């Protein structure tokens, strides 16, 4: 179980602390996106990074279209990693869709988690009567179309990954650079699982505390969504960031670090 999960999800752990901090990347990326954040926590925590099955450098052969057509399949990845590494008292840090994946995991096994830190979270991306999610259904269809078009351009550097690089070592250096590259079919399904998800009903079941890091001017998770989450998540804290956009851990890592440290009660 241990070695299978570790290689399937390309799990890396490091750091001098005891309490685990599990960082979960969002849709479109992989664990590399945490590189500006983790150094600030290495001294006090045990850092765990991973790629969801099908993303980054995970084992694509383990991808199951049925399993990962739902965020529950991704939540199972998180629970599998906790079990394989025997993690307890976990601080879960989730970007974007990973915030809700963390909520699903923590509802299923609340004993494993201490708190959830959500960066740009949204329980539902599509507008629904009075609920403002930010998008209409056809916007998401447009995104799927845009992704499809871009994979035409990316086909070349995706190719070595699909072929496997064991017999093609010259692709090694290129692979390490292939950040955010994902198999197009998998990316398409992850996009659907993400943007068509609706986890509003689950929020009230979260028993552990949570921090919502809400960016200013984030088109993917607008302010109304952050406020909705804060209202419906028991024991939640809402912090509005100066950072704009959807990736504050890339654009404003220092502000992101300061707010997380502040929430965890660690000295900056």
């Amino acid at each position, binding site marked *: 179980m241990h070695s299978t999960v570790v290689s399937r999800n390309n799990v890396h752990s490091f750091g001098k602390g005891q309490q685990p901090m599990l960082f979960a990347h969002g*849709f479109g990326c992989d664990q590399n996106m945490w590189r500006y954040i983790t150094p600030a926590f290495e001294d006090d925590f045990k850092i765990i990074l991973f790629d969801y099955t099908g993303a980054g450098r995970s084992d694509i052969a383990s991808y199951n279209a049925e399993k990962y057509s739902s965020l529950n399949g991704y939540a199972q990845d998180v629970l599998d990693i906790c079990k394989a590494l025997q993690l307890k008292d976990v601080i879960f840090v989730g970007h974007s869709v990973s915030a809700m994946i963390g909520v699903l995991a923590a509802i299923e096994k609340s004993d494993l988690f201490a708190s959830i830190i959500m960066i740009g979270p949204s329980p539902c991306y599509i507008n629904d009567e009075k609920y403002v999610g930010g998008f209409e259904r056809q*916007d998401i269809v447009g*995104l799927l179309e*845009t992704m499809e078009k*871009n994979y035409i351009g990316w086909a070349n550097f995706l190719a070595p990954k699909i072929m496997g690089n064991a017999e093609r070592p010259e692709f090694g250096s290129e692979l390490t650079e292939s950040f955010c590259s994902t198999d197009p079919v998998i990316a398409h399904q992850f996009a659907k699982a993400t943007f068509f998800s609706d986890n509003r009903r689950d929020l009230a079941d979260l028993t552990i505390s949570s921090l919502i890091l809400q960016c200013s001017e984030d*088109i993917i998770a607008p302010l109304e969504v952050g406020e909705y989450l804060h209202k419906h998540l028991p024991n939640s804290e809402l912090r509005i960031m100066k950072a704009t956009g*959807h990736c504050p851990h890339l654009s404003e890592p220092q502000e992101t670090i300061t707010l997380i440290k502040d929430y965890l009660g660690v000295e900056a």
Partner: protein
Amino acid sequence: MTDYFDNAPCCYFSFNDSGALLFVNQTLCTVLGYNREELTGKKVETIFSIPAKIFYQTHFFPLLKMHGHAEEIFIFLQAKNGSQLPLLMNAGQGENDGVPGYACVGIIVQNRKQFEDELVNAKNLAERALSENTGLKKAQEELKSQTEALDVQMQLVNNQNNKLKQFNKVATHDLQEPLRKIIFLANLLKDAPGGDLTQQENLTKLFKEASVMSDTLSGLQQYVWLYETPITPETVSCLEIIQKVKKQLAGELGEDKLEITTAKLPVIKADHRQFHLLFYELLYNAVLYKKAGEKAVVGISATVIKKNTFKAVEGRYEYQDVIKIVIKDEGIGFDPQYENMVFELFKKLHHSRRKGVGLALCKLVVENHNGLIEADSMPNNGTSISILLPGDMLVR
């Protein structure tokens, strides 16, 4: 030179880390129908269509930030009048007067887009033709329903096998052993030369063994009853049952032995007698295995989660609503290596006068309702029993 660049047959724009436009060339302004002043300092997303905005946040910006450059990115620009323009661009990290930023050069690819659309359409049509091939689809559906039926069958067979094994063990060992002793003692009694004292002692032993046997048999009878009697679903309030069981246990074991807190307990369609038995056995155990000198403190809560409905077939997934009821005590607990064993018939981890049938009965009740039961425990740290029931049992 500047004029050439400003009016060059390509769109140029640059922006900084927080997404503010630093410079836009005249060509871009012209195709989008903006004045330069309307765009400079605004968010770069101003000129993107909505899907392009999402793509920018989830792919393009992370890629630029982490990789430093991105090639052949295709997006739709949105002009001031709302019309959409397909743009193919390259982007790279750079610096202007010490300010880091990103420069993008793109061309509007109206014709190429049509060409690509045809390509993508042809590809999609081919894929759809393949997947929608009616014969194939029908076969797929049949396979799916067969796999589901197979899963149910396999589970049934597995369950029955286990029960058979347990029954076998009980019949061959647990029943025969006391029986053997009874026969042995009876023989002694018969052959004893009239010493009253020995006869008394032997008789006492005889009765003790006989009562163990009768306990075992009654446990077995209950088990067989649960196994054979079909369930009668009716509307059942878990909270009401728990309150009744609590009263019953107070009568049998004494007041002040059990403290229960409940949260969000559901009303479900289930067999009332069986669920009464289920909560009776679980709460009885909590009192039996409480820490010495303390009262049993039990928390019972429920949530609806999504679980894979396939339990026995590997590699198949369909997430559906499941009612999860957790019964958590703060008792003496047990070693987690026995987590599966505790549900086996007549398995006792602790020495006690109990029959060792309680959790096996619970498992049978839950299985009769197409559910799963799991134990999670640590020595001295309490036991948590999770019951997973199909979501369609939920009334409210």
